[in-house]
């Protein structure tokens, strides 16, 4: 349960940190680029990819450590 909760809480913390960063950058995120699209729309797509990458790396590190322990 320890590793699952570690992964969960770190993912939760990173996501809420992204919200806090976004609230500080709100004037920039609201700038229009073209045809109804704002900087925030691009930022959200980039953030989703980076967030997925964070989860993957965190999961990989946890699994590697556990498999190493067993050798």
């Amino acid at each position: 349960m320890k590793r699952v909760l570690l992964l969960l809480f770190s993912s939760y913390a990173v996501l809420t940190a992204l919200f806090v960063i976004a609230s500080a950058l709100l004037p920039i995120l609201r700038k229009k680029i073209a045809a109804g699209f704002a900087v925030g729309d691009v930022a959200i797509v980039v953030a989703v990819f980076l967030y997925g990458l964070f989860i993957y790396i965190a999961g990989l590190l946890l699994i590697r450590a556990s498999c190493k322990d067993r050798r």
Partner: protein
Amino acid sequence: MAAFGAGVLFGMWWVPYQKRRGITSRDIYKGVDGVPRAGGLIALVAAAVGYGIISASVWAAVPLLVVALAVGLLGLVDDLRGVHEYARVLFPVLLAFVLARAVDVRLTIPAVGLFYGATGWLAVLAIPVMTNAFNMLDPVNGFLPAANVAVAASLAAVAAVRGQVDAVYLLMIHMAASLALYLYNKYPAKTFNGNVGSYFLGAGLSTLAVLYDLVPYLILAGLPFVVNGALIIFTSGGIKAREKIARPTYLRDGVVYQDCSSPIISLVRVAVSDRPMGEYDVFKTLTVAVAASSALTAALAFFLRLLNMPI
């Protein structure tokens, strides 16, 4: 109450009917054959009764019922005959864009507010994403309906803080439908949820979140599903059918072990990387994770309200 009652009564007929018709599969943890495999229809019927009754006073119940029913029935067809993996992914995407055209969709980010950009269109993608995420994390008896009760309760708390009374009623129906299914799916399960269960519950909750601008809270409360989906997609190299992904765990004498030679990572693998676990321990670990993310999310909404920040 009507939704819960309808689900329980329907289950009394549906579970033995599946057995008689051979709509069954093997419970690998217990080594038992002949377990009905499409029990999720219980939640679908229960919620359909509840949404049908409330639709006279809450307009959102109609698009919610249409989308969730369509995706749930796709899951049922998948359970009975099998559906191509692209159809499983693309059908919810199509419904999501139809919904985006039909209703005014917004995406309010907690603590941030609105970008006034095209993020409303991104919000509807929660429907295919969460539907498939729910489908990817239904590993043990009882977990999926129990998790749905926790996530829906969390969203109901957020909606209550925002003053969205209609959303609270609809979420209570979702909880009642999940509880009716839980009675039949709890350990040791009388029936599996099947794709009909995971698709219907995933589509129902995500459509509700889209209609009431609760998508970021759904992602936060249902974070174990998102984490599991991200792990599987990144390690398997894209979206693939569940049966095409090699299991990163193996079973010996009813105990689940992680397979260190597998490149795939899932949340169940992370859970059993601490120590090998039996089925019920896996259930407890995953349920605690969902309960924790759901409780944190309800607390976040109260906290934002206290600070007068956008919820």
